[in-house]
């Protein structure tokens, strides 16, 4: 894992003291809320429905046991004993007091964490593949590149006041586990003739105008990647609209310019940027990359696993994925208990996951955009002990990628932007499909719920998506089908009129039962939908 050097630590420490002074002045009435608001947002502090909310950055979703423990400590000491893992691989605290915030940021800084780039019109926390460094299919570890982009983007003077927020994802596998093409910039590391480079996709996003990023560069040499990304940002910063927040994202610019013209302008700008020498020297790249060296795997350990405990075997089949290193596996910890709140974990659960990472997982954890946690490097011989510990803590939910593994934004239960509640709908759907045999029969099904058009719950990318809207003061839920955030990225289509809270649960069940009726062997819900089309499902849902 990356470790701060003196510059990183000095920057973060200075930021804490700067914010401490700003909070002091705000509480003393020396600055108004209008003056203070942009300052607190630059430190991840929002004002939500019930209280201040602090969003903590977890760069590319990677953290150590010590960092995870600190998240648990803060939840216990300053919040209400839990935290919420988000679709941006971050963590949010929902009950923060303004007067405590400087101390919380100081605690975070003590373990090389912060809340910078979690708000505002800047380059946000970089996201990545939660299996980075462990997946057999990656061409390189994407994290050194994500870290390079993090260092480049933090407090970048040119890109701190962009027309709108800007999200970047970096992956290195053909299998996309990070919804890469639904980012403002999606980077897929690839190798051509042995040379490392990247496909660069620009102009994707969800929100009120969902778009899949077109490919702007089919191959940018790794040595040029930072310059190319800077060129992409510069063209956006120059021409992105600042007069209308709804048209200010880069996806709108590219849609209006056309991908070809945007590509041409980026090429011109890239030629200029290359003369500035911003790409890091090889030694710096090697310094960063060294932090992401593979852990000290034991060689020659067994791949055998005792599957005699049937509950363990179910979890093994559903939540444990292949690792590139013989004898090791990737463990997914689902934060989606039936009837629970997607992405929430108590302080004790957070501590336990930290402990398991330290004891069994080379001290490393990942947060996924699906609001789950990953232990990326676990010896197979330790899987049963891990499962037992998780099971005792209510964390052994064997439902990864099944219908109850639902992404849901905080919705109207917490969020001041929301129009409808998301969590109760997720809970009811999970309860409807609580039977694990039924879930496993249905198979992979990505169900995603947003409480407003901003789409933090990624409903556009759900095989089944649900969007909560306000219909004359009453919560109403639109159903979309056919979305995907994977390598076969697609935007779901609204299937018909909306439903009330109970009606949407019934509608989801009717859609799933239709799938079971018409699927062919091996077909996922999404495959069947794409094969038979919307009308078949529409007929089943609306009768």
């Amino acid at each position, binding site marked *: 894992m990356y470790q701060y050097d003196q510059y990183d630590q000095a920057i973060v420490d200075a930021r804490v003291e700067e914010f401490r002074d700003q909070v002091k002045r*705000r*509480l003393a*009435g020396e600055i*108004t*809320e209008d003056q203070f608001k942009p300052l607190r947002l630059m430190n991840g502090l929002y*004002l939500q*429905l*019930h*209280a*201040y909310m602090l969003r903590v950055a977890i760069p590319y979703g990677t953290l150590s046991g010590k960092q995870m423990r600190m998240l648990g400590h803060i939840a216990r000491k300053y919040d*209400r004993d839990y935290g919420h893992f988000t679709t941006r691989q971050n963590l949010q605290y*929902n*009950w*923060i*007091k*303004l*007067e405590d915030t400087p101390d919380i940021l100081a605690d975070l800084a003590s373990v090389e964490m912060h809340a910078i780039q979690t708000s505002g019109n800047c380059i946000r926390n970089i996201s990545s593949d939660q299996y980075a460094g462990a997946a057999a299919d990656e061409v390189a570890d994407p994290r050194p590149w994500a870290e390079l982009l993090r260092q480049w983007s933090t407090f970048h003077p040119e890109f701190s006041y962009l027309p709108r927020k800007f999200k970047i994802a970096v992956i290195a596998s053909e299998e996309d586990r990070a919804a890469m093409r639904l980012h403002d910039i999606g980077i897929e590391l690839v190798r051509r003739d042995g040379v490392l480079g990247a496909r660069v996709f620009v102009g994707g996003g969800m929100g009120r105008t969902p778009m899949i990023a077109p490919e702007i560069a089919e191959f940018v040499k790794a040595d040029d990647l930072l310059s190319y990304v800077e060129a992409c940002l510069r063209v956006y910063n120059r021409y992105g609209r600042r007069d209308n927040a709804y048209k200010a994202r880069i996806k709108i610019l590219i849609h209006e310019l056309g991908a070809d013209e945007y590509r041409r302008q980026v090429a011109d700008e890239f030629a200029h940027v290359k003369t500035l020498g911003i790409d890091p020297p090889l030694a710096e790249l090697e310094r960063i990359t060294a932090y992401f060296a593979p852990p000290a795997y034991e060689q020659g350990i067994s791949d055998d696993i005792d599957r005699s405990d049937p509950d363990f075997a179910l979890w093994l089949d559903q939540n444990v994925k292949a690792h590139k290193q013989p004898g090791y596996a990737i463990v997914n910890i689902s934060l989606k208990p039936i009837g629970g*709140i997607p992405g929430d974990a108590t302080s004790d659960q957070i501590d336990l996951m930290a402990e398991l990472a330290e004891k069994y997982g080379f001290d490393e954890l990942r947060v996924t955009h699906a609001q789950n946690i990953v232990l990326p490097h676990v010896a197979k011989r330790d899987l049963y002990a891990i499962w037992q510990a998780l099971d005792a803590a209510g964390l052994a939910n064997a439902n990864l990628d099944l219908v109850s593994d639902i992404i849901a934004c905080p919705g*109207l*239960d*917490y969020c*001041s932007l*929301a129009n409808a*509640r998301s*969590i*109760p709908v997720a*809970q009811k759907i999970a309860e409807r499909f609580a039977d694990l045999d039924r879930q496993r029969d249905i198979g992979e099904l990505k169900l995603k719920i947003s409480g407003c058009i901003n789409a933090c719950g990624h409903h556009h990318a759900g095989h089944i998506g649900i969007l909560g809207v*306000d219909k004359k*003061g*009453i*919560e109403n839920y639109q159903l979309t089908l056919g979305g995907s955030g994977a390598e076969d990225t697609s935007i779901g289509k609204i299937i018909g009129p909306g439903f009330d809270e109970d009606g949407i649960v019934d509608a989801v069940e009717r859609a799933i039962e239709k799938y079971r009726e018409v699927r062919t062997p091996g077909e996922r819900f999404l495959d069947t939908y794409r094969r038979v089309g919307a009308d078949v499902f529409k007929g089943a849902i609306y009768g």
Partner: protein
Amino acid sequence: MKIVTGNDLKTGDVIWWTGKGWSRHYGEAVDVVDAADTVIASESAAQRVNAAYAVDAEASPNGPLPLHIKDRVRAAGPTVRADLGINPAVPIVKG
């Protein structure tokens, strides 16, 4: 009926204007009739409340109850964590 709500500057707690100060209990809110702008201006200037605004409300056995679902959720606390709200008995859906 109009009542005024906002968030406490220091703690972020949802608070309601009582005519003399602020309360965490929506039922202690008073009808400000047409004085909402005055209350919001003076209280915001006093740096006690953040993001104050006026909401429509109706009489209820527990005092004035906001009409809109968003404000009822603010009054109640998260509907999915009744243990965290201070007024969890608020009916979220009007009627």
